[in-house]
Protein backbone atom coordinates (compact mmCIF):
# COMPACT_ATOMS: atom_id res chain seq x y z
CA UNK A 1 0.00 0.00 0.00
CA UNK A 2 1.26 3.49 -0.81
CA UNK A 3 2.26 5.72 2.10
CA UNK A 4 -0.21 8.34 0.87
CA UNK A 5 -3.14 5.89 0.86
CA UNK A 6 -4.89 7.47 3.86
CA UNK A 7 -4.66 10.93 2.32
CA UNK A 8 -7.40 10.34 -0.23
CA UNK A 9 -11.10 10.91 0.13
CA UNK A 10 -13.41 7.94 -0.31
CA UNK A 11 -15.06 7.22 -3.66
CA UNK A 12 -17.85 9.72 -4.34
CA UNK A 13 -17.01 11.86 -1.34
CA UNK A 14 -18.07 14.71 -3.62
CA UNK A 15 -21.19 14.98 -5.75
CA UNK A 16 -21.51 17.81 -8.25
CA UNK A 17 -25.14 18.52 -9.08
CA UNK A 18 -26.29 20.61 -12.02
CA UNK A 19 -28.82 23.22 -10.96
CA UNK A 20 -31.19 21.79 -13.58
CA UNK A 21 -30.85 18.30 -12.09
CA UNK A 22 -31.70 19.25 -8.53
CA UNK A 23 -35.43 18.61 -8.82
CA UNK A 24 -35.19 15.18 -10.45
CA UNK A 25 -36.24 12.21 -8.30
CA UNK A 26 -33.11 10.26 -9.32
CA UNK A 27 -30.98 13.07 -7.92
CA UNK A 28 -32.67 12.81 -4.53
CA UNK A 29 -32.40 9.04 -4.60
CA UNK A 30 -28.67 9.07 -5.42
CA UNK A 31 -27.91 11.78 -2.86
CA UNK A 32 -29.88 9.74 -0.33
CA UNK A 33 -27.45 6.87 -0.94
CA UNK A 34 -24.49 9.19 -0.32
CA UNK A 35 -25.50 10.90 2.91
CA UNK A 36 -21.97 11.96 3.81
CA UNK A 37 -21.01 13.35 0.42
CA UNK A 38 -20.18 17.01 -0.01
CA UNK A 39 -22.67 18.38 -2.55
CA UNK A 40 -21.44 21.12 -4.87
CA UNK A 41 -23.94 22.93 -7.07
CA UNK A 42 -22.79 23.54 -10.66
CA UNK A 43 -24.22 25.20 -13.77
CA UNK A 44 -23.33 22.51 -16.31
CA UNK A 45 -21.71 19.12 -15.96
CA UNK A 46 -19.05 20.04 -18.51
CA UNK A 47 -17.76 22.75 -16.13
CA UNK A 48 -16.39 19.90 -14.01
CA UNK A 49 -16.21 16.95 -16.40
CA UNK A 50 -14.40 18.73 -19.23
CA UNK A 51 -11.88 20.84 -17.29
CA UNK A 52 -8.48 20.99 -18.90
CA UNK A 53 -5.33 19.41 -17.41
CA UNK A 54 -7.22 16.90 -15.28
CA UNK A 55 -5.23 13.92 -14.05
CA UNK A 56 -7.54 11.00 -14.65
CA UNK A 57 -5.14 8.56 -13.02
CA UNK A 58 -4.98 10.56 -9.78
CA UNK A 59 -8.77 10.98 -9.88
CA UNK A 60 -9.20 7.20 -9.99
CA UNK A 61 -8.14 7.22 -6.33
CA UNK A 62 -11.18 9.28 -5.39
CA UNK A 63 -13.63 9.78 -8.24
CA UNK A 64 -16.47 12.26 -7.87
CA UNK A 65 -20.04 11.79 -9.07
CA UNK A 66 -21.67 14.37 -11.31
CA UNK A 67 -25.46 14.42 -11.60
CA UNK A 68 -26.72 16.14 -14.71
CA UNK A 69 -29.48 16.45 -17.28
CA UNK A 70 -28.44 15.42 -20.78
CA UNK A 71 -29.93 17.83 -23.26
CA UNK A 72 -27.71 16.69 -26.15
CA UNK A 73 -27.85 13.62 -28.36
CA UNK A 74 -29.13 10.65 -26.40
CA UNK A 75 -28.82 7.66 -28.73
CA UNK A 76 -26.00 6.90 -31.19
CA UNK A 77 -25.46 4.47 -34.03
CA UNK A 78 -23.05 1.67 -33.06
CA UNK A 79 -19.36 2.30 -33.79
CA UNK A 80 -17.51 0.14 -36.33
CA UNK A 81 -15.18 -1.40 -33.70
CA UNK A 82 -18.17 -2.56 -31.67
CA UNK A 83 -19.90 -5.82 -32.44
CA UNK A 84 -23.46 -5.72 -33.71
CA UNK A 85 -24.00 -9.49 -33.24
CA UNK A 86 -25.82 -9.62 -36.52
CA UNK A 87 -28.43 -7.11 -35.31
CA UNK A 88 -29.40 -4.67 -38.06
CA UNK A 89 -30.47 -1.60 -36.08
CA UNK A 90 -27.56 -1.32 -33.71
CA UNK A 91 -27.45 1.67 -31.34
CA UNK A 92 -25.82 2.57 -28.11
CA UNK A 93 -26.63 5.09 -25.46
CA UNK A 94 -24.84 6.49 -22.43
CA UNK A 95 -27.07 7.37 -19.50
CA UNK A 96 -23.87 7.37 -17.45
CA UNK A 97 -20.35 8.20 -18.54
CA UNK A 98 -17.23 6.62 -17.06
CA UNK A 99 -16.73 3.72 -14.74
CA UNK A 100 -15.77 3.09 -11.14
CA UNK A 101 -13.57 0.15 -12.16
CA UNK A 102 -9.99 0.89 -13.12
CA UNK A 103 -8.87 -1.21 -16.07
CA UNK A 104 -5.51 -0.18 -17.43
CA UNK A 105 -6.56 -0.86 -21.02
CA UNK A 106 -9.98 0.76 -20.86
CA UNK A 107 -10.75 3.05 -23.82
CA UNK A 108 -12.63 5.39 -21.46
CA UNK A 109 -9.22 6.54 -20.20
CA UNK A 110 -8.52 7.81 -23.69
CA UNK A 111 -12.02 9.01 -24.42
CA UNK A 112 -12.53 11.23 -21.37
CA UNK A 113 -10.22 13.72 -19.67
CA UNK A 114 -11.35 12.59 -16.26
CA UNK A 115 -12.21 9.67 -14.03
CA UNK A 116 -15.19 11.43 -12.55
CA UNK A 117 -18.50 9.78 -13.36
CA UNK A 118 -21.50 11.51 -14.88
CA UNK A 119 -24.92 10.11 -14.22
CA UNK A 120 -27.73 11.65 -16.25
CA UNK A 121 -30.89 11.76 -14.22
CA UNK A 122 -33.32 12.32 -17.09
CA UNK A 123 -33.56 8.67 -18.07
CA UNK A 124 -37.13 9.13 -19.28
CA UNK A 125 -35.80 11.30 -22.13
CA UNK A 126 -33.53 8.46 -23.23
CA UNK A 127 -36.44 6.05 -23.07
CA UNK A 128 -38.59 8.35 -25.18
CA UNK A 129 -35.88 8.59 -27.86
CA UNK A 130 -35.33 4.84 -27.98
CA UNK A 131 -39.04 4.19 -28.33
CA UNK A 132 -38.98 6.23 -31.55
CA UNK A 133 -36.52 3.78 -33.17
CA UNK A 134 -37.65 0.90 -35.29
CA UNK A 135 -36.72 -2.56 -34.02
CA UNK A 136 -33.62 -1.34 -32.19
CA UNK A 137 -30.84 -3.28 -30.51
CA UNK A 138 -29.48 -0.89 -27.90
CA UNK A 139 -26.32 -1.32 -25.85
CA UNK A 140 -26.80 0.74 -22.72
CA UNK A 141 -23.59 0.07 -20.84
CA UNK A 142 -20.70 0.76 -23.23
CA UNK A 143 -19.28 3.98 -21.80
CA UNK A 144 -19.81 2.89 -18.21
CA UNK A 145 -20.66 -0.18 -16.14
CA UNK A 146 -24.27 0.32 -15.14
CA UNK A 147 -24.48 -2.87 -13.13
CA UNK A 148 -21.26 -2.00 -11.30
CA UNK A 149 -22.74 1.38 -10.38
CA UNK A 150 -26.30 0.18 -9.79
CA UNK A 151 -26.22 0.21 -6.01
CA UNK A 152 -25.52 3.92 -6.27
CA UNK A 153 -27.34 5.12 -9.37
CA UNK A 154 -30.12 2.53 -9.73
CA UNK A 155 -29.83 2.93 -13.51
CA UNK A 156 -29.39 -0.75 -14.28
CA UNK A 157 -32.70 -1.39 -12.51
CA UNK A 158 -34.31 1.39 -14.53
CA UNK A 159 -33.18 -0.18 -17.81
CA UNK A 160 -34.50 -3.56 -16.69
CA UNK A 161 -37.85 -1.91 -16.02
CA UNK A 162 -37.75 -0.25 -19.44
CA UNK A 163 -36.93 -3.55 -21.16
CA UNK A 164 -39.76 -5.22 -19.32
CA UNK A 165 -42.25 -2.57 -20.50
CA UNK A 166 -40.94 -2.59 -24.09
CA UNK A 167 -40.51 -6.20 -25.21
CA UNK A 168 -39.90 -5.18 -28.84
CA UNK A 169 -36.69 -3.37 -27.87
CA UNK A 170 -33.59 -5.52 -27.45
CA UNK A 171 -31.22 -4.24 -24.78
CA UNK A 172 -27.68 -5.30 -23.97
CA UNK A 173 -26.12 -4.46 -20.60
CA UNK A 174 -22.40 -5.15 -20.41
CA UNK A 175 -20.58 -5.56 -17.11
CA UNK A 176 -17.48 -6.68 -15.28
CA UNK A 177 -19.39 -6.67 -12.01
CA UNK A 178 -20.60 -9.77 -10.20
CA UNK A 179 -24.24 -9.11 -9.31
CA UNK A 180 -25.86 -11.65 -7.00
CA UNK A 181 -29.24 -11.46 -8.73
CA UNK A 182 -30.45 -10.34 -12.14
CA UNK A 183 -33.93 -10.13 -13.63
CA UNK A 184 -34.51 -12.50 -16.55
CA UNK A 185 -36.20 -10.99 -19.61
CA UNK A 186 -36.20 -12.35 -23.16
CA UNK A 187 -35.25 -8.96 -24.64
CA UNK A 188 -32.46 -8.20 -22.18
CA UNK A 189 -28.97 -9.58 -22.72
CA UNK A 190 -26.56 -9.54 -19.82
CA UNK A 191 -23.06 -9.44 -21.31
CA UNK A 192 -20.35 -10.51 -18.88
CA UNK A 193 -16.79 -9.59 -19.72
CA UNK A 194 -14.44 -12.29 -18.48
CA UNK A 195 -10.68 -12.01 -18.17
CA UNK A 196 -8.13 -14.55 -16.96
CA UNK A 197 -6.97 -14.01 -13.39
CA UNK A 198 -3.47 -13.28 -14.69
CA UNK A 199 -4.87 -10.34 -16.67
CA UNK A 200 -7.43 -9.20 -14.09
CA UNK A 201 -4.93 -9.10 -11.23
CA UNK A 202 -2.45 -7.07 -13.26
CA UNK A 203 -4.64 -4.77 -15.28
CA UNK A 204 -8.13 -4.59 -13.72
CA UNK A 205 -8.16 -2.66 -10.42
CA UNK A 206 -11.31 -2.65 -8.27
CA UNK A 207 -12.92 -5.28 -10.51
CA UNK A 208 -14.40 -8.46 -9.00
CA UNK A 209 -12.13 -11.48 -9.56
CA UNK A 210 -12.94 -14.10 -12.19
CA UNK A 211 -14.44 -16.54 -9.68
CA UNK A 212 -16.96 -13.90 -8.55
CA UNK A 213 -17.88 -13.04 -12.14
CA UNK A 214 -18.30 -16.73 -12.96
CA UNK A 215 -20.58 -17.15 -9.96
CA UNK A 216 -22.68 -14.24 -11.24
CA UNK A 217 -22.88 -15.85 -14.70
CA UNK A 218 -23.89 -19.16 -13.13
CA UNK A 219 -26.64 -17.48 -11.12
CA UNK A 220 -27.89 -15.51 -14.11
CA UNK A 221 -28.16 -18.65 -16.25
CA UNK A 222 -29.82 -20.54 -13.41
CA UNK A 223 -32.39 -17.74 -13.12
CA UNK A 224 -33.16 -17.87 -16.84
CA UNK A 225 -31.35 -14.71 -17.96
CA UNK A 226 -30.08 -14.32 -21.50
CA UNK A 227 -26.32 -14.32 -21.09
CA UNK A 228 -23.55 -13.29 -23.43
CA UNK A 229 -19.92 -13.96 -22.57
CA UNK A 230 -17.32 -11.50 -23.79
CA UNK A 231 -13.69 -12.49 -24.06
CA UNK A 232 -12.98 -9.02 -25.23
CA UNK A 233 -10.51 -7.40 -25.13
CA UNK A 234 -7.91 -10.14 -25.16
CA UNK A 235 -4.67 -8.65 -23.90
CA UNK A 236 -1.29 -9.77 -25.16
CA UNK A 237 1.09 -10.87 -22.43
CA UNK A 238 3.87 -13.41 -22.41
CA UNK A 239 2.28 -16.84 -22.31
CA UNK A 240 -1.10 -15.51 -23.53
CA UNK A 241 -1.97 -18.77 -25.29
CA UNK A 242 -1.90 -20.88 -22.14
CA UNK A 243 -3.51 -18.13 -20.10
CA UNK A 244 -6.52 -17.74 -22.40
CA UNK A 245 -6.83 -21.50 -22.97
CA UNK A 246 -6.96 -21.85 -19.20
CA UNK A 247 -9.67 -19.21 -19.01
CA UNK A 248 -11.94 -20.93 -21.50
CA UNK A 249 -11.43 -24.31 -19.84
CA UNK A 250 -12.17 -22.76 -16.46
CA UNK A 251 -15.32 -21.12 -17.80
CA UNK A 252 -16.47 -24.31 -19.51
CA UNK A 253 -15.90 -26.15 -16.27
CA UNK A 254 -18.20 -23.82 -14.34
CA UNK A 255 -20.74 -22.66 -16.90
CA UNK A 256 -23.08 -24.70 -19.04
CA UNK A 257 -22.01 -23.06 -22.27
CA UNK A 258 -24.93 -24.56 -24.19
CA UNK A 259 -27.16 -22.17 -22.24
CA UNK A 260 -25.16 -19.07 -23.18
CA UNK A 261 -26.74 -17.03 -25.99
CA UNK A 262 -23.46 -16.26 -27.71
CA UNK A 263 -19.83 -15.48 -27.11
CA UNK A 264 -17.88 -12.50 -28.29
CA UNK A 265 -14.15 -12.56 -28.93
CA UNK A 266 -11.98 -9.56 -29.62
CA UNK A 267 -8.40 -8.51 -29.23
CA UNK A 268 -7.43 -5.16 -27.79
CA UNK A 269 -7.90 -2.35 -30.33
CA UNK A 270 -8.35 1.32 -29.74
CA UNK A 271 -8.50 4.68 -31.46
CA UNK A 272 -4.94 5.89 -32.03
CA UNK A 273 -5.84 9.24 -30.49
CA UNK A 274 -7.08 7.58 -27.31
CA UNK A 275 -3.94 5.46 -27.16
CA UNK A 276 -1.73 8.53 -27.42
CA UNK A 277 -3.51 10.07 -24.45
CA UNK A 278 -3.36 6.87 -22.43
CA UNK A 279 0.38 6.49 -23.02
CA UNK A 280 0.93 10.00 -21.73
CA UNK A 281 -1.17 9.30 -18.64
CA UNK A 282 0.34 5.87 -17.98
CA UNK A 283 4.03 5.90 -18.85
CA UNK A 284 4.47 2.62 -16.99
CA UNK A 285 1.64 0.75 -18.68
CA UNK A 286 2.54 -2.53 -20.30
CA UNK A 287 -0.74 -2.77 -22.21
CA UNK A 288 -0.64 0.73 -23.68
CA UNK A 289 3.01 0.69 -24.71
CA UNK A 290 2.74 -2.46 -26.78
CA UNK A 291 4.14 -1.79 -30.29
CA UNK A 292 0.78 -1.70 -32.03
CA UNK A 293 0.08 -1.37 -35.72
CA UNK A 294 -1.80 1.77 -36.70
CA UNK A 295 -4.29 1.65 -39.55
CA UNK A 296 -7.34 3.75 -40.30
CA UNK A 297 -7.03 5.70 -37.06
CA UNK A 298 -7.05 2.57 -34.91
CA UNK A 299 -4.23 0.82 -33.10
CA UNK A 300 -4.29 -2.96 -32.91
CA UNK A 301 -1.92 -5.85 -32.49
CA UNK A 302 0.20 -6.67 -35.58
CA UNK A 303 -1.96 -8.60 -38.04
CA UNK A 304 -0.16 -11.91 -37.63
CA UNK A 305 -0.38 -11.82 -33.84
CA UNK A 306 -3.93 -10.50 -33.91
CA UNK A 307 -5.06 -13.34 -36.18
CA UNK A 308 -3.23 -15.87 -34.07
CA UNK A 309 -4.91 -14.64 -30.89
CA UNK A 310 -8.38 -14.54 -32.42
CA UNK A 311 -8.02 -17.89 -34.19
CA UNK A 312 -6.65 -19.56 -31.10
CA UNK A 313 -9.43 -18.24 -28.88
CA UNK A 314 -12.17 -19.15 -31.37
CA UNK A 315 -10.74 -22.61 -31.75
CA UNK A 316 -10.55 -23.21 -28.00
CA UNK A 317 -14.11 -21.91 -27.51
CA UNK A 318 -15.15 -23.98 -30.54
CA UNK A 319 -14.48 -27.11 -28.52
CA UNK A 320 -17.51 -26.23 -26.41
CA UNK A 321 -19.75 -24.01 -28.55
CA UNK A 322 -21.02 -24.06 -32.17
CA UNK A 323 -19.10 -21.71 -34.42
CA UNK A 324 -22.32 -19.88 -35.25
CA UNK A 325 -22.56 -18.59 -31.70
CA UNK A 326 -19.05 -17.13 -31.64
CA UNK A 327 -18.86 -13.51 -32.78
CA UNK A 328 -15.70 -11.59 -33.55
CA UNK A 329 -15.40 -7.86 -34.07
CA UNK A 330 -13.82 -8.08 -37.52
Amino acid at each position, binding site marked *: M*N*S*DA*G*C*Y*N*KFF*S*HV*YVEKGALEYPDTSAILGRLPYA*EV*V*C*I*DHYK*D*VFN*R*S*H*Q*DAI*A*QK*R*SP*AMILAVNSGELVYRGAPVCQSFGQREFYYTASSMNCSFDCEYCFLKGMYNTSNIVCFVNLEDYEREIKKLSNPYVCVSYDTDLIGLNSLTGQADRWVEFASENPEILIEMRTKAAPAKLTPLPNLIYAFTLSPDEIASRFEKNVPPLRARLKAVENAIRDGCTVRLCFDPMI*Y*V*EGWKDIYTGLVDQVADRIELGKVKDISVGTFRISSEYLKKMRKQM*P*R*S*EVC*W*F*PFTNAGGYASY*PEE*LDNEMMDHMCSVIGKYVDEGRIFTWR
Partner: protein
Amino acid sequence: MLYIFTAIYCEAEPLIKRYDLSPDAGYPFGGFVSSDGRIRLILTGIGKTLASAAVAHSCARYRISSDDILINIGTCGGGTARTGAYLINKVIDGDSGRTFYPDMLYSTPLGESAITTVSVFATPDDTAADELMLWDMEASGFCDAARLFVPPHRIVLIKAVSDNGSDSKKDLDGELLNSAVSRNLDDIAAAIEVFLKIGETAVCGMSDTGDLAEEFKCSETMRSDLEKLIIYCRNSGRDHVEIIDGMRRDGILPAAHRNAGKGALNEFRRRLLQ
Protein backbone atom coordinates in the same frame (compact mmCIF):
# COMPACT_ATOMS: atom_id res chain seq x y z
CA MET B 1 6.92 20.79 -3.23
CA LEU B 2 4.26 23.03 -1.69
CA TYR B 3 3.95 26.60 -2.90
CA ILE B 4 1.83 28.67 -0.53
CA PHE B 5 0.46 31.95 -1.81
CA THR B 6 -0.79 34.50 0.71
CA ALA B 7 -1.84 38.07 -0.01
CA ILE B 8 -0.15 39.97 2.80
CA TYR B 9 2.42 39.46 5.51
CA CYS B 10 0.01 39.54 8.44
CA GLU B 11 -1.82 36.51 6.96
CA ALA B 12 1.46 34.73 6.26
CA GLU B 13 3.16 35.38 9.59
CA PRO B 14 1.61 32.47 11.54
CA LEU B 15 2.69 30.08 8.76
CA ILE B 16 6.18 31.56 8.57
CA LYS B 17 6.58 30.97 12.31
CA ARG B 18 5.00 27.52 12.29
CA TYR B 19 7.24 26.20 9.53
CA ASP B 20 10.26 28.30 10.48
CA LEU B 21 10.46 29.77 7.01
CA SER B 22 13.41 31.98 6.11
CA PRO B 23 13.17 35.07 3.93
CA ASP B 24 13.96 34.43 0.31
CA ALA B 25 14.34 37.72 -1.47
CA GLY B 26 12.53 38.03 -4.73
CA TYR B 27 11.23 40.72 -6.99
CA PRO B 28 8.45 41.55 -7.57
CA PHE B 29 7.06 38.86 -5.26
CA GLY B 30 9.03 38.27 -2.10
CA GLY B 31 8.78 35.08 -0.15
CA PHE B 32 10.01 32.61 2.41
CA VAL B 33 11.30 29.06 2.19
CA SER B 34 11.69 26.15 4.60
CA SER B 35 15.15 24.80 5.38
CA ASP B 36 14.33 21.43 3.77
CA GLY B 37 13.04 23.22 0.66
CA ARG B 38 9.65 21.46 0.80
CA ILE B 39 7.61 24.61 1.46
CA ARG B 40 7.91 27.96 -0.25
CA LEU B 41 5.62 30.85 0.68
CA ILE B 42 5.05 33.74 -1.72
CA LEU B 43 3.43 37.08 -0.87
CA THR B 44 1.17 38.10 -3.72
CA GLY B 45 -0.29 41.43 -2.62
CA ILE B 46 -4.03 42.12 -2.41
CA GLY B 47 -6.45 41.38 -5.24
CA LYS B 48 -6.98 38.83 -7.94
CA THR B 49 -4.73 40.47 -10.55
CA LEU B 50 -1.74 40.38 -8.24
CA ALA B 51 -2.60 36.84 -7.14
CA SER B 52 -2.66 35.77 -10.78
CA ALA B 53 0.61 37.55 -11.54
CA ALA B 54 2.36 36.05 -8.51
CA VAL B 55 1.32 32.51 -9.43
CA ALA B 56 2.39 32.91 -13.05
CA HIS B 57 5.68 34.51 -12.02
CA SER B 58 6.44 31.81 -9.45
CA CYS B 59 5.53 28.98 -11.80
CA ALA B 60 8.01 30.33 -14.32
CA ARG B 61 10.70 31.28 -11.81
CA TYR B 62 10.66 28.05 -9.80
CA ARG B 63 9.86 25.79 -12.79
CA ILE B 64 6.76 24.51 -11.04
CA SER B 65 5.60 21.19 -12.51
CA SER B 66 2.37 19.24 -12.33
CA ASP B 67 3.80 17.31 -9.37
CA ASP B 68 3.89 20.44 -7.21
CA ILE B 69 0.96 21.65 -5.14
CA LEU B 70 -0.13 25.29 -5.19
CA ILE B 71 -2.05 26.48 -2.13
CA ASN B 72 -3.73 29.80 -1.64
CA ILE B 73 -4.07 30.47 2.07
CA GLY B 74 -5.75 33.61 3.29
CA THR B 75 -8.63 35.22 5.06
CA CYS B 76 -12.16 35.85 3.91
CA GLY B 77 -15.48 37.30 4.92
CA GLY B 78 -18.50 35.16 5.67
CA GLY B 79 -21.96 35.18 7.19
CA THR B 80 -22.35 35.32 10.95
CA ALA B 81 -22.65 31.54 11.12
CA ARG B 82 -19.31 30.95 9.39
CA THR B 83 -16.25 30.53 11.57
CA GLY B 84 -13.01 28.61 11.21
CA ALA B 85 -10.98 27.67 8.15
CA TYR B 86 -12.43 26.10 5.02
CA LEU B 87 -11.15 24.08 2.12
CA ILE B 88 -12.64 25.68 -0.99
CA ASN B 89 -14.48 23.40 -3.44
CA LYS B 90 -15.85 26.05 -5.79
CA VAL B 91 -14.51 29.45 -6.74
CA ILE B 92 -16.75 32.04 -8.38
CA ASP B 93 -15.35 35.20 -9.89
CA GLY B 94 -17.76 37.89 -8.70
CA ASP B 95 -17.07 40.10 -11.71
CA SER B 96 -17.19 37.65 -14.60
CA GLY B 97 -19.30 34.92 -13.02
CA ARG B 98 -16.72 32.36 -14.11
CA THR B 99 -16.34 29.32 -11.90
CA PHE B 100 -13.42 27.09 -11.05
CA TYR B 101 -13.52 23.71 -9.34
CA PRO B 102 -10.37 22.36 -7.69
CA ASP B 103 -10.35 18.55 -7.49
CA MET B 104 -11.15 17.46 -3.96
CA LEU B 105 -9.17 14.22 -3.84
CA TYR B 106 -7.49 14.64 -0.50
CA SER B 107 -8.95 14.09 2.92
CA THR B 108 -8.27 16.90 5.39
CA PRO B 109 -9.90 17.88 8.69
CA LEU B 110 -11.23 21.11 7.19
CA GLY B 111 -14.85 21.76 6.35
CA GLU B 112 -15.64 22.84 2.79
CA SER B 113 -17.22 25.86 1.20
CA ALA B 114 -17.67 27.79 -2.02
CA ILE B 115 -16.13 31.25 -2.26
CA THR B 116 -16.79 34.35 -4.35
CA THR B 117 -13.88 36.58 -5.28
CA VAL B 118 -14.71 40.27 -5.42
CA SER B 119 -12.71 43.35 -6.36
CA VAL B 120 -13.76 45.39 -3.30
CA PHE B 121 -14.36 44.26 0.27
CA ALA B 122 -17.55 42.29 0.78
CA THR B 123 -20.02 44.23 2.91
CA PRO B 124 -22.14 42.90 5.78
CA ASP B 125 -25.07 43.02 3.34
CA ASP B 126 -23.18 40.74 0.92
CA THR B 127 -22.33 38.18 3.57
CA ALA B 128 -25.83 38.27 5.05
CA ALA B 129 -27.42 37.74 1.63
CA ASP B 130 -25.86 34.28 1.25
CA GLU B 131 -24.97 32.70 4.57
CA LEU B 132 -23.30 29.73 2.87
CA MET B 133 -20.92 31.81 0.74
CA LEU B 134 -17.45 33.07 1.63
CA TRP B 135 -15.94 36.23 0.12
CA ASP B 136 -12.34 37.04 -0.67
CA MET B 137 -10.21 39.05 -3.09
CA GLU B 138 -7.68 36.61 -4.53
CA ALA B 139 -9.08 33.09 -5.07
CA SER B 140 -10.30 33.43 -8.67
CA GLY B 141 -7.10 35.17 -9.78
CA PHE B 142 -5.04 32.46 -8.09
CA CYS B 143 -7.04 29.74 -9.86
CA ASP B 144 -6.97 31.46 -13.22
CA ALA B 145 -3.19 31.31 -13.31
CA ALA B 146 -2.67 28.06 -11.37
CA ARG B 147 -4.86 26.02 -13.74
CA LEU B 148 -2.45 26.81 -16.58
CA PHE B 149 0.45 25.14 -14.79
CA VAL B 150 -0.85 22.29 -12.64
CA PRO B 151 -3.80 19.87 -12.76
CA PRO B 152 -6.90 20.72 -10.69
CA HIS B 153 -6.01 18.20 -7.97
CA ARG B 154 -2.82 20.15 -7.32
CA ILE B 155 -4.71 23.40 -6.72
CA VAL B 156 -5.80 24.01 -3.14
CA LEU B 157 -7.44 26.96 -1.44
CA ILE B 158 -7.78 27.36 2.33
CA LYS B 159 -9.60 30.37 3.71
CA ALA B 160 -10.02 31.40 7.34
CA VAL B 161 -13.02 33.55 8.15
CA SER B 162 -11.85 36.86 9.61
CA ASP B 163 -15.02 38.98 9.52
CA ASN B 164 -18.64 39.22 8.47
CA GLY B 165 -17.99 41.82 5.81
CA SER B 166 -16.98 45.39 6.22
CA ASP B 167 -18.14 48.80 5.04
CA SER B 168 -14.72 50.27 5.53
CA LYS B 169 -11.20 49.02 4.85
CA LYS B 170 -10.20 50.42 8.24
CA ASP B 171 -12.21 47.70 10.00
CA LEU B 172 -9.97 45.02 8.53
CA ASP B 173 -6.67 45.64 10.25
CA GLY B 174 -3.65 43.39 10.19
CA GLU B 175 -4.27 42.07 13.67
CA LEU B 176 -7.74 40.83 12.74
CA LEU B 177 -6.44 39.00 9.66
CA ASN B 178 -3.44 37.60 11.51
CA SER B 179 -5.57 36.25 14.32
CA ALA B 180 -7.99 34.58 11.86
CA VAL B 181 -5.11 32.50 10.50
CA SER B 182 -3.52 31.98 13.94
CA ARG B 183 -6.79 30.77 15.49
CA ASN B 184 -7.11 28.08 12.80
CA LEU B 185 -3.44 27.30 12.40
CA ASP B 186 -3.66 23.75 13.78
CA ASP B 187 -6.39 22.82 11.30
CA ILE B 188 -4.58 24.50 8.45
CA ALA B 189 -1.33 22.76 9.41
CA ALA B 190 -3.10 19.38 9.55
CA ALA B 191 -4.28 19.96 5.98
CA ILE B 192 -0.80 21.03 4.89
CA GLU B 193 0.54 17.82 6.44
CA VAL B 194 -1.71 15.83 4.10
CA PHE B 195 -0.44 17.72 1.06
CA LEU B 196 3.16 17.18 2.15
CA LYS B 197 2.49 13.45 2.39
CA ILE B 198 1.14 13.13 -1.13
CA GLY B 199 3.79 11.23 -3.00
CA GLU B 200 5.19 12.94 -6.03
CA THR B 201 4.41 11.03 -9.16
CA ALA B 202 7.48 9.55 -10.69
CA VAL B 203 7.83 11.06 -14.11
CA CYS B 204 8.90 8.54 -16.68
CA GLY B 205 10.16 10.30 -19.70
CA MET B 206 11.05 8.75 -22.98
CA SER B 207 13.89 6.32 -22.80
CA ASP B 208 17.31 7.58 -23.86
CA THR B 209 18.20 5.48 -26.87
CA GLY B 210 21.58 7.20 -27.29
CA ASP B 211 24.13 5.07 -29.13
CA LEU B 212 21.54 2.41 -29.87
CA ALA B 213 19.84 4.72 -32.35
CA GLU B 214 23.19 5.03 -34.11
CA GLU B 215 23.47 1.27 -34.36
CA PHE B 216 20.05 1.15 -36.02
CA LYS B 217 20.96 4.11 -38.29
CA CYS B 218 17.73 5.70 -37.09
CA SER B 219 15.79 8.48 -38.78
CA GLU B 220 13.73 10.61 -36.37
CA THR B 221 10.68 8.39 -36.92
CA MET B 222 12.73 5.24 -36.37
CA ARG B 223 14.25 6.73 -33.21
CA SER B 224 10.77 7.37 -31.85
CA ASP B 225 9.75 3.77 -32.69
CA LEU B 226 12.89 2.45 -31.03
CA GLU B 227 12.19 4.51 -27.89
CA LYS B 228 8.65 3.13 -27.70
CA LEU B 229 9.92 -0.43 -28.06
CA ILE B 230 12.40 0.11 -25.25
CA ILE B 231 9.68 1.58 -23.04
CA TYR B 232 7.54 -1.47 -23.79
CA CYS B 233 10.48 -3.69 -22.79
CA ARG B 234 10.82 -1.82 -19.51
CA ASN B 235 7.06 -1.88 -18.79
CA SER B 236 6.66 -5.55 -19.62
CA GLY B 237 9.76 -6.63 -17.72
CA ARG B 238 11.65 -7.81 -20.80
CA ASP B 239 15.38 -7.27 -21.10
CA HIS B 240 16.02 -5.35 -24.31
CA VAL B 241 19.79 -5.58 -23.82
CA GLU B 242 19.62 -9.34 -24.17
CA ILE B 243 17.69 -9.08 -27.45
CA ILE B 244 20.03 -6.42 -28.81
CA ASP B 245 23.10 -8.47 -27.85
CA GLY B 246 21.61 -11.42 -29.72
CA MET B 247 21.12 -9.24 -32.79
CA ARG B 248 24.73 -8.11 -32.55
CA ARG B 249 25.89 -11.72 -32.33
CA ASP B 250 23.80 -12.53 -35.41
CA GLY B 251 25.43 -9.67 -37.30
CA ILE B 252 22.15 -7.70 -37.66
CA LEU B 253 23.54 -4.82 -35.62
CA PRO B 254 25.15 -2.44 -36.14
CA ALA B 255 23.18 -1.80 -39.32
CA ALA B 256 25.21 -0.85 -42.39
CA HIS B 257 22.73 1.72 -43.66
CA ARG B 258 19.22 3.16 -43.07
CA ASN B 259 17.40 0.38 -44.93
CA ALA B 260 19.25 -2.31 -43.02
CA GLY B 261 18.38 -0.37 -39.87
CA LYS B 262 14.67 -0.54 -40.73
CA GLY B 263 15.01 -4.27 -41.14
CA ALA B 264 16.84 -4.49 -37.82
CA LEU B 265 14.07 -2.55 -36.10
CA ASN B 266 11.48 -4.98 -37.45
CA GLU B 267 13.63 -7.86 -36.28
CA PHE B 268 13.89 -6.29 -32.83
CA ARG B 269 10.09 -6.05 -32.71
CA ARG B 270 9.73 -9.64 -33.89
CA ARG B 271 12.16 -11.02 -31.31
CA LEU B 272 10.52 -8.97 -28.60
CA LEU B 273 7.13 -10.57 -29.28
CA GLN B 274 8.41 -14.10 -29.71
